[in-house]
């Protein structure tokens, strides 16, 4: 890249490697960084410093400090423990570093959160499940880490929706530790100990495990399952169709591209643009909500959100199946803010 370009060092801090979602998140960041660096109009050159390892709060705090000590211009962090990193990130921001927290909201001064609305994300599939069941039946919930903010947000969303369907009763609720094998074990246990389950609400990778368990147990009538949005699940879904033609599901996309979206926002800030206060929302008033890119469906679904606003989510299973044909199992269906969408969060430079 040319001499006159502005060079920005951007640090990435990630505290969990054992997840393909995070891997993809980092790759998307790298892609977008390259794209931005190559964009002649923009005239920036982005150097990434990636701190990514399985570690705890203390370890991630060290990551942040190392990045600051290197003198990075911006930090994009996916916090393992949002509260525990708060103070360190505030220090970083105070030291003039642009700090973007993705995937999780942090109540930190000078920190900007770029996330999807986890509660809303959960409501969509919960609503779908409830509607599909016609508001009647026994369901089980398999959640992520109990006590993890994202999980808490999602489960609140689910409870809000279910509250509207007195006919649906939750006959089992357990943590699948956001881990496919555990999700699978938990579901096996439910299937074995609870007579007839009409539906399962679960999230992320656990869905594959859950579906796997159901296929293995092969109950008389197949319960409804909220799915996920990984290539593996799309394929599993297809294979299930072989024996149960009327099987269906839903995969609400939780985009790993959120990191890349965060990068776009960061670059805007580095270029001196100011965020449009109107756009800032969230519990701490420092969050930019990225829309949920799209939903995987094999039948159209007319979604009604909490404010009663309707929106039609189209069936797209077959196209998606085509799309992911070449992609690895671990690929998660994705969506990244475009430059325009990102710019929309900022005060138009006049």
């Amino acid at each position: 890249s040319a001499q006159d370009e502005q060079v920005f060092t951007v640090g990435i801090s990630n505290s969990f490697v054992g997840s393909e979602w995070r891997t993809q998140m980092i790759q998307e960041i790298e892609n977008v960084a390259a794209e931005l660096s190559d964009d002649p109009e923009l005239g920036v050159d982005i150097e990434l410093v990636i701190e990514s390892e399985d570690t705890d709060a203390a370890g991630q705090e060290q990551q942040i400090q190392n990045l600051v000590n290197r003198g990075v211009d911006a930090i994009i962090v996916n916090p393992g423990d949002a509260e525990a990193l708060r103070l360190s990130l505030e220090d970083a921001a105070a030291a003039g570093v642009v700090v973007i927290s993705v995937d999780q909201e942090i109540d930190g001064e000078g920190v900007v959160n770029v996330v999807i609305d986890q509660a809303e994300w959960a409501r969509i599939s919960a609503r779908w499940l409830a509607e599909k069941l016609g508001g009647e039946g026994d369901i089980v919930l398999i959640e992520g880490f109990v006590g993890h903010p994202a999980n808490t947000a999602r489960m609140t969303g689910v409870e809000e929706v279910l509250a509207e369907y007195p006919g649906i009763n939750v006959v089992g609720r357990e943590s699948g530790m956001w881990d496919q094998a555990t999700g699978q074990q938990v579901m096996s246990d439910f299937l074995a100990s609870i007579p007839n389950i009409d539906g399962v609400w679960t999230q992320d990778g656990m869905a594959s495990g859950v579906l796997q368990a159901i296929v293995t147990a092969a109950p008389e009538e197949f319960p409804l399952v909220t799915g996920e949005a990984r290539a593996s699940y799309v394929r599993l879904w297809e294979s299930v169709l072989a024996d149960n033609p009327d099987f269906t599901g839903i995969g609400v996309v939780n985009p790993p591209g959120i990191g890349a979206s965060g990068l776009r926002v960061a670059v805007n800030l580095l270029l001196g643009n100011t965020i449009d206060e109107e756009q800032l929302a969230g519990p701490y008033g420092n969050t930019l909500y990225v829309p949920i890119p799209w939903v995987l469906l094999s039948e159209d679904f007319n979604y009604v959100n909490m404010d009663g606003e309707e929106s039609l989510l189209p069936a797209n299973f077959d196209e998606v199946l085509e799309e992911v044909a070449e992609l690895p199992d671990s690929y998660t269906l994705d969506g990244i803010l475009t430059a325009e969408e990102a710019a929309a969060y900022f005060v138009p430079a006049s």
Partner: protein
Amino acid sequence: MTALTNKDSRSTLKRIQSRLPPPLVALILAVLLFLIGGLLAPGFANVNQAVNIVRLAAFLGIIAAGQTLVIISGGEGIDLSVGALVTLGAILTYRITDGDEALILPALGVILLVGLLIGLLNGIGVALLRMPPLVITLGMAGVVTGLIYFVTRGQLIGDTPPAMGTLLSSALIGPIPGVVILWLLLGAGMWLLLERTQYGKQLFAVGINRTAARLSGVRVNLVVMLTYGLSGMLAAFGGFVLLGFTQTVFLNLGQPFLFPSIAAVVVGGTVLAGGKGSYWGTIAGALVLQVINSLLLALRVEEAFQLIILGVILLVLLTMYGRQRSVRQ
């Protein structure tokens, strides 16, 4: 004059325990818990649940096989690299077969070899470098995980041969899944290894008293290295089997099985000091742990209490087997 009274009066607990061998205690406990479950959570104690529990226990049990050998070998023997090796075994199978059933056996061969080699490295650290097993195997776990990250770069390409699912995970004979049958076979194999081979007999000797073993012609270092090698091999095999259940792999597939694998061995009455134990015990231990798991789940006990209850049960069982001698004679 005051009469001195005998200090070591045997407790009732001890007497019970001296009558019932620990594996039996564990097995009875498993059954009891299962029946209690039936009372507390209607619909819990049914055939489905029984089959399901045994299936889930089978994966843990198979993974804990190597751990049993290492713990018997004594000298603070413990293998913390089991979790990482399970993951490695699954990932390798996933990648090598890439869904092709013809490649299942070759893949199996490869992972057994890889597991053996990594285990032998642990063994060398323990026997020749005299490193504490806890530390060297923990370090090795790090290396294996590091290797996985380095090679895959987080991209897990491959596929699971459908046969593995049908053969291992789903019902094979009647309601009984293949993995359970495999588990029983392994159990028989382990019994042969421990009770009917020179290696097994020497392993117990090494576990109790290395000097005496050596003076009876046992190549202590050799036995120790071999044991860690076998542990690595069996852990990798556990990964292979687990893949049949999960069908897909992910980077921390095996980690959740590490500490349960130790717990299963201990609950089965194998003495951590070494030289005393059996794989039947580990089998019973795995069943106990899985029943507890499923029961707490059926009772919808919150995680906090699940942990507390598990801890208490472990302590109680240990008090039943794990006493050491007191300094005062």
